[in-house]
Protein backbone atom coordinates (compact mmCIF):
# COMPACT_ATOMS: atom_id res chain seq x y z
CA UNK A 1 0.00 0.00 0.00
CA UNK A 2 1.10 3.53 -0.73
CA UNK A 3 1.78 6.10 1.94
CA UNK A 4 -0.79 8.87 2.08
CA UNK A 5 1.06 10.74 4.81
CA UNK A 6 4.80 10.66 5.10
CA UNK A 7 6.56 12.50 7.92
CA UNK A 8 10.34 12.78 8.00
CA UNK A 9 12.57 14.13 10.80
CA UNK A 10 9.83 16.50 11.91
CA UNK A 11 10.74 18.86 14.75
CA UNK A 12 9.06 21.73 16.50
CA UNK A 13 10.88 23.91 19.00
CA UNK A 14 9.12 26.53 21.10
CA UNK A 15 11.65 29.02 22.41
CA UNK A 16 13.82 26.48 24.21
CA UNK A 17 11.38 23.61 24.59
CA UNK A 18 11.56 20.78 22.05
CA UNK A 19 7.91 19.80 21.66
CA UNK A 20 8.57 17.39 18.79
CA UNK A 21 12.04 15.88 18.51
CA UNK A 22 12.55 14.60 14.98
CA UNK A 23 9.83 12.05 14.35
CA UNK A 24 9.48 9.92 11.24
CA UNK A 25 6.48 7.82 10.29
CA UNK A 26 4.17 6.89 7.43
CA UNK A 27 0.42 6.48 7.26
CA UNK A 28 -0.74 4.06 4.58
CA UNK A 29 -3.62 4.70 2.29
CA UNK A 30 -6.92 3.33 3.61
CA UNK A 31 -5.79 2.44 7.10
CA UNK A 32 -6.98 3.64 10.49
CA UNK A 33 -3.94 5.10 12.17
CA UNK A 34 -4.16 5.57 15.92
CA UNK A 35 -1.98 8.30 17.37
CA UNK A 36 -1.66 7.91 21.13
CA UNK A 37 0.20 9.60 23.88
CA UNK A 38 -0.21 11.23 27.28
CA UNK A 39 -1.03 14.93 27.54
CA UNK A 40 1.89 17.10 26.55
CA UNK A 41 3.53 14.35 24.51
CA UNK A 42 3.54 16.51 21.38
CA UNK A 43 0.52 14.92 19.72
CA UNK A 44 -1.44 18.11 19.08
CA UNK A 45 1.67 19.92 17.91
CA UNK A 46 2.32 17.13 15.42
CA UNK A 47 -1.25 17.09 14.14
CA UNK A 48 -1.31 20.88 13.81
CA UNK A 49 1.84 20.73 11.72
CA UNK A 50 0.43 17.99 9.49
CA UNK A 51 -2.78 20.00 9.03
CA UNK A 52 -0.79 23.11 7.97
CA UNK A 53 -1.93 25.03 11.03
CA UNK A 54 1.54 25.26 12.53
CA UNK A 55 4.90 25.80 10.88
CA UNK A 56 7.43 23.05 11.59
CA UNK A 57 10.87 24.05 12.85
CA UNK A 58 12.39 21.50 10.49
CA UNK A 59 11.57 18.29 8.67
CA UNK A 60 9.28 17.21 5.90
CA UNK A 61 5.57 16.40 5.71
CA UNK A 62 4.04 15.02 2.52
CA UNK A 63 0.29 14.42 2.33
CA UNK A 64 -1.37 13.08 -0.78
CA UNK A 65 1.87 13.99 -2.64
CA UNK A 66 1.66 17.63 -1.50
CA UNK A 67 4.21 19.37 0.67
CA UNK A 68 2.51 20.66 3.84
CA UNK A 69 4.96 23.54 4.06
CA UNK A 70 4.72 24.81 0.50
CA UNK A 71 1.43 23.55 -0.94
CA UNK A 72 -0.80 24.43 1.99
CA UNK A 73 -3.99 24.89 0.00
CA UNK A 74 -3.63 21.54 -1.77
CA UNK A 75 -2.99 19.81 1.54
CA UNK A 76 -5.97 21.58 3.12
CA UNK A 77 -8.19 20.42 0.27
CA UNK A 78 -6.97 16.83 0.74
CA UNK A 79 -7.84 16.52 4.41
CA UNK A 80 -10.89 16.69 6.63
CA UNK A 81 -10.59 17.48 10.30
CA UNK A 82 -12.93 16.67 13.17
CA UNK A 83 -11.69 18.80 16.03
CA UNK A 84 -11.91 17.95 19.68
CA UNK A 85 -14.14 20.96 20.32
CA UNK A 86 -17.25 22.05 18.53
CA UNK A 87 -16.53 24.09 15.40
CA UNK A 88 -20.06 24.27 14.01
CA UNK A 89 -21.97 27.50 13.63
CA UNK A 90 -24.77 26.85 16.09
CA UNK A 91 -26.93 29.74 14.89
CA UNK A 92 -27.22 28.11 11.49
CA UNK A 93 -29.02 24.93 10.52
CA UNK A 94 -27.16 21.71 9.77
CA UNK A 95 -27.88 22.12 6.10
CA UNK A 96 -26.53 25.69 6.10
CA UNK A 97 -23.37 24.56 7.88
CA UNK A 98 -22.81 21.94 5.20
CA UNK A 99 -23.51 24.38 2.36
CA UNK A 100 -20.90 26.78 3.71
CA UNK A 101 -18.40 23.95 3.90
CA UNK A 102 -19.02 23.10 0.22
CA UNK A 103 -18.20 26.68 -0.65
CA UNK A 104 -15.03 26.80 1.45
CA UNK A 105 -13.82 23.64 -0.27
CA UNK A 106 -15.07 24.52 -3.74
CA UNK A 107 -17.22 21.42 -4.16
CA UNK A 108 -18.65 21.60 -7.72
CA UNK A 109 -21.98 23.47 -7.61
CA UNK A 110 -24.06 20.77 -9.29
CA UNK A 111 -22.87 18.13 -6.82
CA UNK A 112 -23.42 20.04 -3.60
CA UNK A 113 -27.00 19.08 -2.82
CA UNK A 114 -26.50 15.45 -3.64
CA UNK A 115 -23.38 15.21 -1.46
CA UNK A 116 -25.02 17.02 1.44
CA UNK A 117 -27.91 14.54 1.41
CA UNK A 118 -25.46 11.67 1.07
CA UNK A 119 -23.36 12.57 4.12
CA UNK A 120 -26.46 13.40 6.15
CA UNK A 121 -27.72 9.92 5.48
CA UNK A 122 -24.45 8.33 6.54
CA UNK A 123 -24.69 9.98 9.97
CA UNK A 124 -28.48 9.63 10.25
CA UNK A 125 -29.30 13.32 10.40
CA UNK A 126 -31.31 13.52 7.22
CA UNK A 127 -34.60 14.39 8.93
CA UNK A 128 -33.05 16.94 11.29
CA UNK A 129 -31.10 18.88 8.65
CA UNK A 130 -33.23 22.02 8.84
CA UNK A 131 -32.95 22.42 12.58
CA UNK A 132 -30.54 24.90 14.04
CA UNK A 133 -27.45 23.24 15.42
CA UNK A 134 -28.00 24.82 18.85
CA UNK A 135 -31.00 22.49 19.21
CA UNK A 136 -28.86 19.41 18.60
CA UNK A 137 -27.60 17.04 21.32
CA UNK A 138 -23.86 16.53 21.84
CA UNK A 139 -23.88 13.29 19.87
CA UNK A 140 -25.78 14.81 16.97
CA UNK A 141 -23.30 17.68 16.79
CA UNK A 142 -20.40 15.25 16.61
CA UNK A 143 -22.12 13.30 13.85
CA UNK A 144 -22.76 16.50 11.94
CA UNK A 145 -19.09 17.44 12.25
CA UNK A 146 -18.13 14.06 10.86
CA UNK A 147 -20.58 14.52 8.00
CA UNK A 148 -19.11 17.93 7.31
CA UNK A 149 -15.57 16.58 7.36
CA UNK A 150 -16.55 14.12 4.61
CA UNK A 151 -18.28 16.57 2.28
CA UNK A 152 -15.28 17.39 0.15
CA UNK A 153 -14.23 13.71 -0.13
CA UNK A 154 -10.98 14.12 1.78
CA UNK A 155 -8.19 11.62 1.33
CA UNK A 156 -7.46 11.64 5.04
CA UNK A 157 -9.88 12.29 7.86
CA UNK A 158 -8.33 13.51 11.10
CA UNK A 159 -10.33 12.65 14.19
CA UNK A 160 -9.00 14.43 17.26
CA UNK A 161 -10.60 12.88 20.33
CA UNK A 162 -13.88 12.44 18.46
CA UNK A 163 -15.78 10.87 21.34
CA UNK A 164 -14.63 13.06 24.21
CA UNK A 165 -17.51 14.21 26.42
CA UNK A 166 -20.02 11.76 24.95
CA UNK A 167 -21.89 9.10 26.88
CA UNK A 168 -20.82 5.47 26.33
CA UNK A 169 -23.85 4.67 24.22
CA UNK A 170 -23.26 7.55 21.82
CA UNK A 171 -19.58 6.72 21.72
CA UNK A 172 -20.31 3.18 20.60
CA UNK A 173 -22.67 4.48 17.93
CA UNK A 174 -20.13 6.95 16.66
CA UNK A 175 -17.58 4.21 16.17
CA UNK A 176 -20.11 2.26 14.18
CA UNK A 177 -20.44 5.25 11.86
CA UNK A 178 -16.70 5.63 11.59
CA UNK A 179 -16.18 1.95 10.75
CA UNK A 180 -19.02 2.07 8.26
CA UNK A 181 -17.26 4.96 6.59
CA UNK A 182 -13.97 3.20 6.39
CA UNK A 183 -15.61 0.22 4.73
CA UNK A 184 -17.76 2.25 2.34
CA UNK A 185 -15.43 5.05 1.33
CA UNK A 186 -12.00 3.63 2.06
CA UNK A 187 -10.93 6.91 3.63
CA UNK A 188 -7.68 6.94 5.57
CA UNK A 189 -8.29 7.90 9.20
CA UNK A 190 -5.85 9.54 11.52
CA UNK A 191 -7.18 9.17 15.02
CA UNK A 192 -6.27 10.38 18.47
CA UNK A 193 -8.11 9.24 21.54
CA UNK A 194 -7.77 8.96 25.28
CA UNK A 195 -9.91 5.86 25.34
CA UNK A 196 -7.43 3.13 24.53
CA UNK A 197 -10.11 0.50 24.05
CA UNK A 198 -11.34 2.67 21.17
CA UNK A 199 -7.88 2.74 19.63
CA UNK A 200 -8.13 -1.06 19.24
CA UNK A 201 -9.97 -0.55 15.95
CA UNK A 202 -6.82 0.98 14.46
CA UNK A 203 -4.87 -0.97 11.89
CA UNK A 204 -1.73 0.52 13.37
CA UNK A 205 -0.99 2.71 16.35
CA UNK A 206 1.88 5.02 17.13
CA UNK A 207 2.67 5.89 20.72
CA UNK A 208 4.22 9.26 21.27
CA UNK A 209 5.89 10.35 24.49
CA UNK A 210 8.01 13.39 25.28
CA UNK A 211 8.22 14.49 21.67
CA UNK A 212 9.26 11.13 20.28
CA UNK A 213 7.52 8.14 18.77
CA UNK A 214 8.42 5.24 21.01
CA UNK A 215 6.41 2.48 19.38
CA UNK A 216 4.58 1.99 16.11
CA UNK A 217 2.86 -1.21 15.02
CA UNK A 218 -0.50 -2.97 14.86
CA UNK A 219 -2.30 -3.25 18.22
CA UNK A 220 -1.92 -7.05 18.11
CA UNK A 221 1.79 -6.89 17.41
CA UNK A 222 2.30 -4.39 20.20
CA UNK A 223 0.43 -6.59 22.63
CA UNK A 224 2.34 -9.65 21.52
CA UNK A 225 5.54 -7.73 22.07
CA UNK A 226 4.62 -7.46 25.73
CA UNK A 227 4.30 -11.22 25.72
CA UNK A 228 2.29 -13.58 27.81
CA UNK A 229 -0.97 -13.24 29.68
CA UNK A 230 -2.02 -11.25 32.66
CA UNK A 231 -3.52 -12.84 35.76
CA UNK A 232 -5.14 -10.63 38.35
CA UNK A 233 -6.15 -12.12 41.67
CA UNK A 234 -7.14 -11.25 45.19
CA UNK A 235 -6.64 -13.57 48.13
CA UNK A 236 -7.52 -13.62 51.80
CA UNK A 237 -3.97 -12.68 52.63
CA UNK A 238 -2.26 -10.95 49.73
CA UNK A 239 1.11 -10.56 51.43
CA UNK A 240 1.43 -14.23 52.27
CA UNK A 241 0.21 -15.15 48.80
CA UNK A 242 2.76 -12.86 47.22
CA UNK A 243 5.55 -14.46 49.18
CA UNK A 244 4.38 -17.91 48.23
CA UNK A 245 4.14 -16.97 44.53
CA UNK A 246 7.64 -15.51 44.53
CA UNK A 247 9.09 -18.56 46.25
CA UNK A 248 7.41 -21.31 44.35
CA UNK A 249 6.39 -20.13 40.87
CA UNK A 250 7.90 -19.04 37.61
CA UNK A 251 6.42 -15.74 36.56
CA UNK A 252 7.61 -12.99 34.27
CA UNK A 253 6.54 -10.17 36.51
CA UNK A 254 4.67 -9.70 39.80
CA UNK A 255 3.09 -6.48 40.97
CA UNK A 256 0.64 -5.46 43.70
CA UNK A 257 -1.73 -2.65 42.99
CA UNK A 258 -4.41 -1.69 45.50
CA UNK A 259 -5.56 -5.08 46.78
CA UNK A 260 -4.96 -7.00 43.57
CA UNK A 261 -1.93 -9.03 42.65
CA UNK A 262 -0.94 -8.75 38.99
CA UNK A 263 1.01 -11.61 37.50
CA UNK A 264 2.44 -11.72 34.06
CA UNK A 265 3.10 -15.22 32.80
CA UNK A 266 4.23 -16.62 29.49
CA UNK A 267 1.18 -18.76 28.97
CA UNK A 268 -1.77 -18.79 31.29
CA UNK A 269 -3.00 -22.18 30.02
CA UNK A 270 0.06 -24.01 31.30
CA UNK A 271 0.40 -21.91 34.42
CA UNK A 272 -3.05 -21.66 35.88
CA UNK A 273 -3.93 -25.27 36.81
CA UNK A 274 -0.70 -25.89 38.69
CA UNK A 275 -0.96 -22.44 40.19
CA UNK A 276 -4.37 -23.04 41.72
CA UNK A 277 -3.25 -26.42 43.07
CA UNK A 278 -0.08 -25.02 44.59
CA UNK A 279 -1.38 -21.85 46.21
CA UNK A 280 -2.38 -22.58 49.81
CA UNK A 281 -4.07 -19.26 50.57
CA UNK A 282 -7.70 -19.18 49.41
CA UNK A 283 -8.34 -17.08 46.29
CA UNK A 284 -11.25 -14.64 46.49
CA UNK A 285 -11.08 -13.23 42.97
CA UNK A 286 -9.39 -14.39 39.80
CA UNK A 287 -9.20 -12.89 36.35
CA UNK A 288 -7.13 -14.01 33.38
CA UNK A 289 -6.77 -11.76 30.38
CA UNK A 290 -4.69 -10.93 27.37
CA UNK A 291 -2.78 -7.65 27.47
CA UNK A 292 -4.69 -4.58 26.23
CA UNK A 293 -3.41 -1.39 24.69
CA UNK A 294 -3.56 0.04 28.20
CA UNK A 295 -0.89 -2.46 29.26
CA UNK A 296 1.11 -1.60 26.15
CA UNK A 297 0.87 2.06 26.92
CA UNK A 298 1.85 1.53 30.53
CA UNK A 299 4.80 -0.63 29.53
CA UNK A 300 6.13 1.90 27.01
CA UNK A 301 5.54 5.15 28.83
CA UNK A 302 5.51 4.00 32.45
CA UNK A 303 2.26 5.89 32.84
CA UNK A 304 -1.41 5.40 32.30
CA UNK A 305 -2.81 7.56 29.51
CA UNK A 306 -4.86 9.69 31.90
CA UNK A 307 -2.97 11.06 34.83
Amino acid sequence: MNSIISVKDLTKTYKKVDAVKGITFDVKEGEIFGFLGPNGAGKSTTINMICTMLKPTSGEIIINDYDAKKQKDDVRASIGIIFQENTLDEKLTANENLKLHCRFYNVPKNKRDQRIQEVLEIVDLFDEQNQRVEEYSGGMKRRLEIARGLLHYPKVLFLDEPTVGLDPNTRAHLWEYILKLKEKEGITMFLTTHYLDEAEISDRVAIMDQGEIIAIDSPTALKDQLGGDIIELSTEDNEAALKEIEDKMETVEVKVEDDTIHLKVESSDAFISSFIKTLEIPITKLNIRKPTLNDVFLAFTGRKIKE
Partner: protein
Amino acid sequence: MEGIIAIWQRDLTKFFRDRARLLGSFSMPILFLLIFGGGLSGTMETMMSGGFGEESSGFNYVEFVFPGIVAMTLLMTAIFSAMSVIEDKNYGYMKEILVSPISRVSIAVGKMLGAATVSTIQGVILFLLIPFLGLSYSIISLIQVIPFMFLLGAALSGVGLLFASMIKSTQGFQLIVQIIVMPMIFLSGALFPVSNMPGWLDVIVKLNPVTYGVDVMKKIMIDVDSLSQTVQETMGLHITVFGRTVSVFEEILFILAFAVVFVAIATISFKRAHA
Protein backbone atom coordinates in the same frame (compact mmCIF):
# COMPACT_ATOMS: atom_id res chain seq x y z
CA MET B 1 -14.44 34.22 -5.01
CA GLU B 2 -16.64 31.41 -3.74
CA GLY B 3 -14.99 31.73 -0.34
CA ILE B 4 -15.62 35.48 -0.16
CA ILE B 5 -19.30 34.91 -0.93
CA ALA B 6 -19.52 32.19 1.72
CA ILE B 7 -18.02 34.37 4.45
CA TRP B 8 -20.11 37.36 3.39
CA GLN B 9 -23.34 35.41 3.18
CA ARG B 10 -22.85 33.77 6.55
CA ASP B 11 -22.39 37.10 8.34
CA LEU B 12 -25.43 38.49 6.57
CA THR B 13 -27.66 35.52 7.42
CA LYS B 14 -26.64 35.79 11.05
CA PHE B 15 -27.31 39.53 11.06
CA PHE B 16 -30.89 39.07 9.89
CA ARG B 17 -31.45 36.27 12.37
CA ASP B 18 -30.36 38.36 15.32
CA ARG B 19 -33.39 40.62 15.87
CA ALA B 20 -32.09 42.08 19.12
CA ARG B 21 -28.95 43.32 17.44
CA LEU B 22 -30.93 44.72 14.54
CA LEU B 23 -33.15 46.80 16.82
CA GLY B 24 -30.49 47.63 19.38
CA SER B 25 -28.20 49.19 16.86
CA PHE B 26 -30.85 51.79 16.00
CA SER B 27 -31.22 53.09 19.52
CA MET B 28 -27.99 55.09 19.44
CA PRO B 29 -28.50 56.96 16.12
CA ILE B 30 -32.13 57.70 17.01
CA LEU B 31 -31.06 59.02 20.38
CA PHE B 32 -28.48 61.22 18.70
CA LEU B 33 -31.01 62.44 16.16
CA LEU B 34 -33.40 63.36 18.97
CA ILE B 35 -30.78 65.13 21.05
CA PHE B 36 -28.83 66.82 18.30
CA GLY B 37 -31.61 67.21 15.78
CA GLY B 38 -34.41 68.17 18.12
CA GLY B 39 -32.70 69.57 21.19
CA LEU B 40 -29.62 71.22 19.84
CA SER B 41 -30.71 72.52 16.48
CA GLY B 42 -32.08 75.85 17.73
CA THR B 43 -29.00 76.63 19.75
CA MET B 44 -26.64 75.55 17.01
CA GLU B 45 -28.40 77.60 14.40
CA THR B 46 -28.36 80.72 16.57
CA MET B 47 -24.70 80.24 17.40
CA MET B 48 -23.78 79.70 13.80
CA SER B 49 -25.85 82.54 12.47
CA GLY B 50 -23.69 84.99 14.41
CA GLY B 51 -21.25 84.81 11.54
CA PHE B 52 -23.58 85.47 8.66
CA GLY B 53 -26.39 87.72 9.84
CA GLU B 54 -29.08 88.00 7.18
CA GLU B 55 -28.14 84.79 5.42
CA SER B 56 -28.77 82.66 8.52
CA SER B 57 -31.98 81.27 7.08
CA GLY B 58 -29.83 79.19 4.75
CA PHE B 59 -28.43 77.04 7.52
CA ASN B 60 -30.49 74.07 8.68
CA TYR B 61 -28.71 72.15 11.45
CA VAL B 62 -30.80 68.99 11.14
CA GLU B 63 -29.98 68.86 7.46
CA PHE B 64 -26.34 69.26 8.42
CA VAL B 65 -26.34 66.62 11.16
CA PHE B 66 -28.37 63.90 9.45
CA PRO B 67 -25.66 62.69 7.04
CA GLY B 68 -23.27 62.82 10.01
CA ILE B 69 -25.49 60.56 12.06
CA VAL B 70 -25.86 58.14 9.16
CA ALA B 71 -22.05 58.09 8.94
CA MET B 72 -21.88 57.49 12.68
CA THR B 73 -24.23 54.51 12.29
CA LEU B 74 -22.00 53.19 9.52
CA LEU B 75 -18.95 53.53 11.72
CA MET B 76 -20.46 51.78 14.72
CA THR B 77 -22.12 48.97 12.77
CA ALA B 78 -19.06 48.36 10.62
CA ILE B 79 -16.70 48.15 13.57
CA PHE B 80 -19.02 46.03 15.68
CA SER B 81 -19.59 43.65 12.78
CA ALA B 82 -15.89 42.87 12.90
CA MET B 83 -16.52 41.47 16.38
CA SER B 84 -17.80 38.35 14.60
CA VAL B 85 -14.14 37.48 14.06
CA ILE B 86 -13.63 37.24 17.83
CA GLU B 87 -16.86 35.30 18.27
CA ASP B 88 -15.81 32.88 15.55
CA LYS B 89 -12.51 32.34 17.33
CA ASN B 90 -14.17 31.79 20.70
CA TYR B 91 -16.87 29.46 19.38
CA GLY B 92 -14.37 27.49 17.31
CA TYR B 93 -15.81 28.28 13.89
CA MET B 94 -12.67 30.14 12.88
CA LYS B 95 -10.87 26.78 12.88
CA GLU B 96 -13.27 25.44 10.29
CA ILE B 97 -12.51 28.48 8.14
CA LEU B 98 -8.75 28.44 8.69
CA VAL B 99 -8.19 24.75 7.89
CA SER B 100 -10.10 25.08 4.63
CA PRO B 101 -8.27 25.88 1.40
CA ILE B 102 -9.93 29.30 1.11
CA SER B 103 -7.32 32.02 0.73
CA ARG B 104 -6.61 34.30 3.66
CA VAL B 105 -7.35 37.37 1.52
CA SER B 106 -10.81 35.97 0.86
CA ILE B 107 -11.45 35.67 4.60
CA ALA B 108 -10.47 39.31 5.17
CA VAL B 109 -12.37 40.60 2.13
CA GLY B 110 -15.43 38.48 2.97
CA LYS B 111 -15.52 39.83 6.52
CA MET B 112 -15.06 43.38 5.24
CA LEU B 113 -17.82 43.10 2.65
CA GLY B 114 -20.12 41.51 5.22
CA ALA B 115 -19.60 44.40 7.62
CA ALA B 116 -20.00 46.92 4.79
CA THR B 117 -23.29 45.37 3.68
CA VAL B 118 -24.71 45.19 7.19
CA SER B 119 -23.73 48.78 7.97
CA THR B 120 -25.10 50.08 4.65
CA ILE B 121 -28.42 48.38 5.36
CA GLN B 122 -28.54 49.97 8.81
CA GLY B 123 -27.68 53.34 7.32
CA VAL B 124 -30.31 53.09 4.62
CA ILE B 125 -32.99 52.14 7.16
CA LEU B 126 -32.29 55.51 8.82
CA PHE B 127 -33.45 57.17 5.59
CA LEU B 128 -36.96 56.23 6.69
CA LEU B 129 -36.72 58.95 9.34
CA ILE B 130 -36.15 61.71 6.79
CA PRO B 131 -39.83 62.73 6.41
CA PHE B 132 -40.33 62.78 10.18
CA LEU B 133 -37.39 65.12 10.66
CA GLY B 134 -38.90 67.57 8.18
CA LEU B 135 -36.03 67.07 5.79
CA SER B 136 -36.10 66.70 2.08
CA TYR B 137 -33.20 65.19 0.20
CA SER B 138 -33.60 64.41 -3.46
CA ILE B 139 -34.19 60.73 -4.23
CA ILE B 140 -31.31 60.79 -6.68
CA SER B 141 -28.86 62.04 -4.07
CA LEU B 142 -30.03 59.33 -1.66
CA ILE B 143 -29.45 56.65 -4.29
CA GLN B 144 -26.09 58.16 -5.18
CA VAL B 145 -24.93 58.11 -1.59
CA ILE B 146 -25.57 54.36 -1.07
CA PRO B 147 -22.53 53.04 -2.98
CA PHE B 148 -20.39 55.51 -1.11
CA MET B 149 -21.87 54.37 2.21
CA PHE B 150 -20.85 50.85 1.25
CA LEU B 151 -17.28 51.95 0.58
CA LEU B 152 -17.13 53.88 3.83
CA GLY B 153 -18.56 50.91 5.73
CA ALA B 154 -15.89 48.65 4.21
CA ALA B 155 -13.08 51.04 5.10
CA LEU B 156 -14.28 51.52 8.67
CA SER B 157 -14.80 47.79 9.24
CA GLY B 158 -11.07 47.53 8.56
CA VAL B 159 -10.47 49.34 11.85
CA GLY B 160 -12.71 46.77 13.55
CA LEU B 161 -10.87 43.88 11.90
CA LEU B 162 -7.56 45.25 13.13
CA PHE B 163 -8.77 45.35 16.73
CA ALA B 164 -10.50 41.99 16.40
CA SER B 165 -7.22 40.42 15.36
CA MET B 166 -5.48 41.75 18.48
CA ILE B 167 -8.15 41.32 21.16
CA LYS B 168 -9.28 37.96 22.47
CA SER B 169 -12.53 38.73 24.32
CA THR B 170 -15.67 40.40 23.02
CA GLN B 171 -15.87 42.46 26.23
CA GLY B 172 -12.37 43.81 25.67
CA PHE B 173 -13.25 44.58 22.08
CA GLN B 174 -16.36 46.52 23.06
CA LEU B 175 -14.40 48.54 25.57
CA ILE B 176 -11.63 49.47 23.15
CA VAL B 177 -14.10 50.23 20.40
CA GLN B 178 -16.05 52.62 22.63
CA ILE B 179 -12.84 54.44 23.38
CA ILE B 180 -11.95 54.68 19.69
CA VAL B 181 -15.39 55.28 18.18
CA MET B 182 -16.39 58.33 20.23
CA PRO B 183 -13.41 60.52 19.24
CA MET B 184 -13.77 59.32 15.65
CA ILE B 185 -17.34 60.65 15.64
CA PHE B 186 -16.74 63.88 17.55
CA LEU B 187 -13.62 64.74 15.56
CA SER B 188 -15.13 64.15 12.15
CA GLY B 189 -17.51 67.02 11.60
CA ALA B 190 -20.46 64.63 11.86
CA LEU B 191 -22.14 66.55 14.68
CA PHE B 192 -20.57 70.00 14.53
CA PRO B 193 -18.22 71.70 12.11
CA VAL B 194 -14.55 70.99 12.77
CA SER B 195 -13.13 73.82 10.73
CA ASN B 196 -11.74 75.79 13.68
CA MET B 197 -9.84 73.20 15.67
CA PRO B 198 -6.62 73.79 17.60
CA GLY B 199 -3.54 72.45 15.80
CA TRP B 200 -3.13 69.05 17.46
CA LEU B 201 -6.83 68.22 17.22
CA ASP B 202 -6.80 69.35 13.61
CA VAL B 203 -4.17 66.70 12.85
CA ILE B 204 -6.47 63.99 14.24
CA VAL B 205 -9.41 65.41 12.29
CA LYS B 206 -7.44 65.26 9.05
CA LEU B 207 -6.23 61.70 9.67
CA ASN B 208 -9.68 60.46 10.63
CA PRO B 209 -11.30 58.67 7.67
CA VAL B 210 -14.74 59.51 9.07
CA THR B 211 -13.99 63.20 8.41
CA TYR B 212 -13.81 62.58 4.67
CA GLY B 213 -16.68 60.13 4.79
CA VAL B 214 -18.96 62.64 6.47
CA ASP B 215 -17.83 65.37 4.11
CA VAL B 216 -18.52 63.34 0.97
CA MET B 217 -21.91 62.27 2.31
CA LYS B 218 -22.86 65.87 3.03
CA LYS B 219 -21.71 66.98 -0.40
CA ILE B 220 -23.78 64.27 -2.08
CA MET B 221 -26.90 64.64 0.07
CA ILE B 222 -27.09 68.38 0.67
CA ASP B 223 -27.57 70.64 -2.33
CA VAL B 224 -24.34 72.46 -1.60
CA ASP B 225 -24.40 74.80 -4.61
CA SER B 226 -27.63 76.44 -3.44
CA LEU B 227 -25.95 77.49 -0.21
CA SER B 228 -24.08 80.73 0.06
CA GLN B 229 -20.31 80.66 0.41
CA THR B 230 -20.53 81.74 4.06
CA VAL B 231 -22.92 78.93 4.96
CA GLN B 232 -20.66 76.44 3.23
CA GLU B 233 -17.71 77.78 5.23
CA THR B 234 -19.62 77.60 8.49
CA MET B 235 -20.69 74.03 7.83
CA GLY B 236 -17.03 73.20 7.38
CA LEU B 237 -17.52 71.86 3.90
CA HIS B 238 -14.13 72.91 2.66
CA ILE B 239 -11.55 70.64 4.20
CA THR B 240 -8.04 71.82 3.63
CA VAL B 241 -4.97 69.63 3.94
CA PHE B 242 -1.63 71.45 3.80
CA GLY B 243 -3.48 74.62 2.86
CA ARG B 244 -5.25 73.21 -0.17
CA THR B 245 -8.88 72.21 -0.40
CA VAL B 246 -9.38 68.50 -1.08
CA SER B 247 -11.82 67.42 -3.77
CA VAL B 248 -14.52 64.77 -3.39
CA PHE B 249 -12.55 62.53 -5.72
CA GLU B 250 -9.47 62.77 -3.49
CA GLU B 251 -11.55 62.06 -0.43
CA ILE B 252 -13.00 58.91 -1.99
CA LEU B 253 -9.51 57.88 -3.04
CA PHE B 254 -8.28 58.30 0.53
CA ILE B 255 -11.09 56.12 1.89
CA LEU B 256 -10.45 53.50 -0.77
CA ALA B 257 -6.75 53.44 0.09
CA PHE B 258 -7.67 53.18 3.77
CA ALA B 259 -9.85 50.13 3.02
CA VAL B 260 -7.10 48.45 0.98
CA VAL B 261 -4.45 49.00 3.66
CA PHE B 262 -6.66 47.56 6.37
CA VAL B 263 -7.73 44.56 4.34
CA ALA B 264 -4.03 43.85 3.81
CA ILE B 265 -3.37 44.05 7.55
CA ALA B 266 -6.32 41.76 8.24
CA THR B 267 -5.03 39.26 5.68
CA ILE B 268 -1.67 39.13 7.42
CA SER B 269 -3.36 38.54 10.76
CA PHE B 270 -5.38 35.63 9.30
CA LYS B 271 -2.18 34.21 7.79
CA ARG B 272 -0.52 34.23 11.17
CA ALA B 273 -3.51 32.85 13.01
CA HIS B 274 -3.39 29.16 13.61
CA ALA B 275 -6.53 28.03 15.28
